[in-house]
């Protein structure tokens, strides 16, 4: 396998494959920067162009694009508080507050650097796990996948710091909203009121844009202040890299979690960033700044969402099971080029598989470097008068929302969710839990239904289920313990300060 990898590397540099990777990266850069568009849209745009291409060229183009959307979508997440795509939802929580403090370049520098490292770890994971993936894949059933969805949902409490009950209700609201449309088990319509648009469920991009983009843009207008609150920029891309290097263990840990969860099909890339963010916040001793502009809140999700690309490719290539929407379109592209996925990817098509691994690694390096070059000039966007910037952004957000299903329902839903999001923002209701609930609703329902119909109640005794259940308990217990010790430290600090004041 190592010999095949060396030959593939030589081919990548010797032929025109590099050019296709760079073209894919450039397309991915634009797709990522436009909020609401993600890898699926980018893949769909490129599909018509791969007709008649050599498989290695077409794959380089598609992988180059897919790898980099997870990096460039950080621009809108950090600068505007709008999730660039499903993969960068959690980055908003700390990235945007950093931009408001004038530290956009630092946040972007850290995000792009860890994206590159995460992407490389994902590529190594893909290479290393190719041989060992089959038995692991077979051990995963619907009960384990349901438990993983619950693991994602358990992050709701963490994301609702200081407003636990409101956060949980917000998460449940997302779950209920996600249940609108056809029931996964029977296809019966729920709460569609005869609107065909709602039958497929409410599109994710519309909910994300409505919940974050519209309220943030309205807030900018009402405050009438630049995104960088104090009208100044601090830090640079390199300061971001330096900050990131202080958290090496977090980068590696988040990347590995991202790659492993990405490897599990069905849970979806949308929840990886929430899980890694939650774990980072839950296991850090001094976690009181999470959600207020803590660099670790940017590092954890950004490292994971790039690493997951390596993981999602394993079931796609070996079993023809797409791990995410992007890999589903990639699978279509491979079939269009006559590539038969399956065990042959490790035998007759091994050189092609290795080309994919190298394309992924190279695209991450090229893309992250390009993003770092662009970061400082683009972060000046935070200094523009909001009344001149926001109308453009409203137009982009409206156009992007319409791409979800190209139906007028997208715009009506955008306005409706936007109004709810704005009310929640004004009244201090946590919004991220709602998005987590929405993302996980259908998968949680589907896997619970499958588990109950296949195993009855016996599914709860499966070792994988017990393992994930223990993990959930461990995370919650760690969070409670760390919160309690933080409060204890704060109380101790208060009692030591008071006598000093009295003496003065």
């Amino acid at each position, binding site marked *: 396998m190592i010999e095949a990898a060396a030959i593939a590397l030589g081919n990548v540099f010797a032929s025109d494959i590099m050019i296709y990777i760079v073209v894919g990266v450039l397309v991915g850069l634009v797709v990522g920067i436009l909020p609401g568009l993600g890898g699926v849209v980018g893949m769909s745009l490129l599909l018509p162009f791969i007709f008649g291409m050599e498989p290695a060229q077409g794959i380089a183009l598609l992988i180059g694009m897919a790898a980099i959307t997870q990096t460039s979508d950080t621009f809108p997440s950090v600068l505007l508080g709008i999730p660039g795509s499903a993969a960068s939802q959690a980055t908003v929580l700390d990235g945007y507050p950093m931009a408001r403090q004038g530290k956009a370049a630092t946040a972007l520098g850290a995000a792009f650097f860890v994206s590159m490292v995460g992407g490389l770890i994902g590529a190594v994971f893909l290479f290393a796990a190719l041989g060992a993936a089959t038995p692991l894949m077979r051990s995963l059933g619907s009960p384990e996948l349901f438990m993983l969805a619950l693991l994602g949902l358990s992050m709701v409490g963490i994301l609702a710091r200081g407003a636990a009950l409101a956060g949980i*209700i917000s998460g449940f609201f997302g779950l209920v909203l996600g249940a609108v449309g056809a029931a996964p088990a029977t296809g019966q319509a729920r709460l569609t009121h005869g609107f065909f648009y709602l039958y497929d469920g409410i599109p994710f991009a519309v909910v994300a844009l409505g919940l974050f983009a519209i309220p943030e843009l*309205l807030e900018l207008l009402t405050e009438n202040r630049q995104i960088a609150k104090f009208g100044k920029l601090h830090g640079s891309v390199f300061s971001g890299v330096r900050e990131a290097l202080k958290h090496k263990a977090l980068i590696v840990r988040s990347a590995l979690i991202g790659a492993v969860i990405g490897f599990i099909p069905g849970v979806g890339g949308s929840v990886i960033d929430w899980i890694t963010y939650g774990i980072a916040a839950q296991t850090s001793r001094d976690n009181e700044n999470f959600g207020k502009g803590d660099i670790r809140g940017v590092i954890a999700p950004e490292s994971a969402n790039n690493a997951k690309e390596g993981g999602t490719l394993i079931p796609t290539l070996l079993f023809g099971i797409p791990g995410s929407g992007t890999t589903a379109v990639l699978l279509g592209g491979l079939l269009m080029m006559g590539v038969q996925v399956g065990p042959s990817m490790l035998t007759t098509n091994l050189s092609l598989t290795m080309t994919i691994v190298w394309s992924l690694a190279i695209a991450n390096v090229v893309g992250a470097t390009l993003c770092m070059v662009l970061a400082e000039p683009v972060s000046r966007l935070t200094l523009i008068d909001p009344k*001149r910037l926001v109308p453009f952004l409203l137009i982009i957000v409206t156009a992007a929302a319409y791409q979800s299903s190209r139906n007028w329902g997208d715009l009506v839903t955008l306005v409706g969710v936007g109004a709810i999001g704005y009310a929640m923002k004004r009244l201090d209701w946590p919004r991220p839990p709602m998005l987590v609930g929405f993302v996980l609703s259908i998968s949680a329902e589907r896997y619970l239904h499958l588990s109950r119909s296949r195993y009855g109640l016996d599914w709860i005794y499966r070792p994988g289920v017990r393992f994930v259940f223990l993990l959930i308990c461990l995370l919650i217990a760690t969070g409670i313990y760390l919160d309690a010790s933080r409060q204890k430290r704060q109380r101790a600090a208060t009692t030591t300060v008071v006598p000093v004041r009295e003496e003065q």
Partner: protein
Amino acid sequence: MAAFQVKYRILLTVAFASFFAYFIWSVRNLQYASRFFPQLIALIALVLAVVQIGLEFRQRSTLAASEALRTDQRLASATSSAERPKLAGSTHSLAGAAPVIEEAATADIQSSGRRGLQFMALYLGFIGLIWLLGFAVAAPLFLAVFLVLVARSRWSGVALALVGYAAGYFALTTFADMVLPPRGY
């Protein structure tokens, strides 16, 4: 958080609770497999929302009581007897710096809320314009009107913005095959 904000919070929570109740009712006739999961989560959510409403009512009454206490303290601290009737008759008369800041903050929150609603209405107008004219016409019109009336931009700036919009529109519809909303009728 001020008492008036808690009032709006209660309204939002009641809206959530109503939605959960309606959802439970609307799926009641579906097959068991279709309604089990959503009904279960909506039921839990409804119970939690009711608890939240109770907590918010308690918070509101606590805040109202503390605001009344502060008013009494201000009345008591008013030095001259001539000031007393004035303070008692008006909640806006102030006796100290802290209440001034507090009331200014409340007024600011209320006015920024009103501004937010105005901008929301402006955005709704944009969506209505798309419904009437289609995106291709409505977007530059909205951009120009917004820049002239809200941002008070100069005509040269508006022209530059429109050129930028045209370039972006051309690029997205030609190279990215983006479909933009047509007229709604």
